[in-house]
Every structure is written in structure tokens, then in C-alpha cells.
């Protein structure tokens, strides 16, 4: 292994660990303050939305709202199945099948 690459990998690991452990280290002795707790209550909804919506609307890095965007079509149908069934297996198998069929067309 080249030593400069090795140092870069170690550096990447250290800063990544900082982002993962930082919040815990900060609140370890004080607990999480109330005002922050109120803010954090909606973090799950906000993060999940920010992970899902761009990956469906911009799957290739540019905005694509058209029938050619397979991720969007399969995503809308998967959202409907998820709403009706609340079931990961059903949502995933229907969503992936639609994705597969759209690729073949």
C-alpha cells in the first residue's frame, strides 16, 4: 500500500468518526438540551425526505420530471404501495419489478 494513500484513508476515517461520535461526545455529560430536543423531533421526517425526494427527482444529477425518469415513476407507485401496505417487502418487490420492466421497455 502506498503510504500517501494510507495516510489519506486514515484521515478520512478520523474525520468521518468525528462526525459520527461528535454529537454523543458533546451531550455525554450534559444531556440533550430541551430546545434542541424540540428541533430534533422532526429530524427523522426531514432527513428521510431529503434522502428520498432528490434521488427520485434527480437520479442522474439533473432535474428530470418526465415519463423517462424510471426512478420517479417507480417511486410514485412505491409510495402508494407503502401507504396502503406499510410493508417493506411488498413495496420493494413491486417497486423493483416496475423498475425492471421500465428498463426493459
Amino acid at each position, binding site marked *: 500500500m502506498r503510504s500517501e494513500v494510507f495516510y489519506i484513508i486514515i484521515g478520512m476515517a478520523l474525520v468521518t468518526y468525528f462526525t459520527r461520535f*461528535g454529537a454523543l461526545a458533546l451531550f*455525554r455529560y450534559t444531556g440533550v438540551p430541551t430546545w434542541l430536543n424540540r428541533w430534533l423531533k*422532526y429530524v427523522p421526517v426531514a432527513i428521510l*425526505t431529503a434522502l428520498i425526494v432528490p434521488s427520485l427527482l434527480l437520479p442522474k444529477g439533473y432535474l428530470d420530471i418526465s415519463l423517462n425518469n424510471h426512478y420517479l415513476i417507480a417511486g410514485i407507485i412505491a409510495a402508494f404501495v407503502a401507504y396502503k401496505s406499510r410493508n417493506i417487502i411488498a413495496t420493494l418487490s413491486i417497486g423493483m419489478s416496475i423498475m425492471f420492466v421500465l428498463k426493459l421497455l
Partner: protein
Amino acid sequence: MQLSNLLSGKNELAEEAWVALRECTPVVLGVIPFGITCGIMGLTANMSGLETISMSVIVFAGASQFIGITMLGAGITGWGIIILTTLLVNLRHLIMGSSLAPYMIKLPFPLQALLAFLLTDETYALTISRIHKARYSALYQLTVSTMLYLVWILSTVAGVVLGGYISDPLTWGLDFAMPATFLVLLIPLLADRISLIVFGTAAVVSVYAALYLPGKWYIIIACLTASLIGGLLEGDSEHA
């Protein structure tokens, strides 16, 4: 009596681990094409197999590995820019860490340190959804994160070994497994007016930010804006 308590305790733990395994399977399968791609990218960036695999073992962060490998492949060997980019791409973990902190700070320190090392978008999404449905469980989080970690490493190895023989697995559309799984976790959370407003805000902000900002900034910006609005609305409705 003590024995039966112990046994039922064991059963509960086994049950929790089993639920975790079952619920993480779709996400874990969705990670495989990314791991394979990571291995292939390492080869095309002229990294050795050992370098690519050790990155998956000690960094364990998909997006920043892709970016780091691409930069190394482009001949950027200055450590500063790669490490700074990694930091920025992973800043979103600080928000997830804060969100899980109220539960995790009660755990023994070594377990906190280990769970923090293994924290990813996928583990966060599943663990928070488990809290919503039942309660926080360190065993659940540990099971999910360990599975993701092992599969990430194994699929990187597969990418390095098979690299020359297969085409880019992300063109198969398998990366759709991630948003599809997250949809199932998100929809039950959209049960009240404030959550729907947070959803709408995060959707609009993340799309705009993804269009105009580099890297993963769109996740951080959308999350901070939308959850702040949610917190403020929540505060108002408490006073009313």
C-alpha cells in the same frame, strides 16, 4: 423462577435481533450494488485491492469513499482537499448523532463508541423507525449496523475481485432499493399537520439545494431548515 425470567429475557433479545435482521434485509441487499461499484471504482482509479478494501473497512461511508476514490483517480493526492471533502460530505452524521443522542448517551461507553463508528444513513433510518414503532433498542441498532458493515466490506471485495468481468451494477436500477425502503419508513411518520409541512419543506429545499449546491449539502440544508420549521411550529402549538 429466576431461570424462567432469564429465559424469557433471552427470548426477548433473540426476538429483537430477529426483527432487526428481517427489517434490515432489503436495505442490506440494496447496499450490495454500491459496494461492488466501490470496488470497481477503486480498480479504475488505479488503487490496489488492499487500498480499496481497507478504505471500506476503516472509513465505511459510501458517498465519501466514492468521492475520495474519484479524487485519487484524478491524481489528487493532497490529503487536505480529500479529507475536507469527506468531512463536509459526512457532516449530516452530526445531525443523526444528535437525534439518537438522547437514547445512546445512556449506553456503556464502548458500546456508544462502536455504534457511532457504524452509524450510517440506513442504520439511522431503521433505528429511528424502530423507536417510533416500539422503543429504542441498542441490540436492534447493533444488529442492523453490523450487517450493513459486513455486507459493505464483502461487496467491496466482490467488486475488487470481479471488477474486470462485470459492468457497472448501478445501471441495473438496483439503487432504487434505498429510496423505496426509506419510503416505507417515512410514510408512517407523516401522521400530523406539522410532519406534512416538514415533509413539504424538506422536499422543496432538498431539490433546489441538490440543483445548485455541490456534494451532500442538500441533505444538511434541507434537514436543518425543515426540522427547525417543525420545531418552531411545535413550540407555537404548545403555547396555544
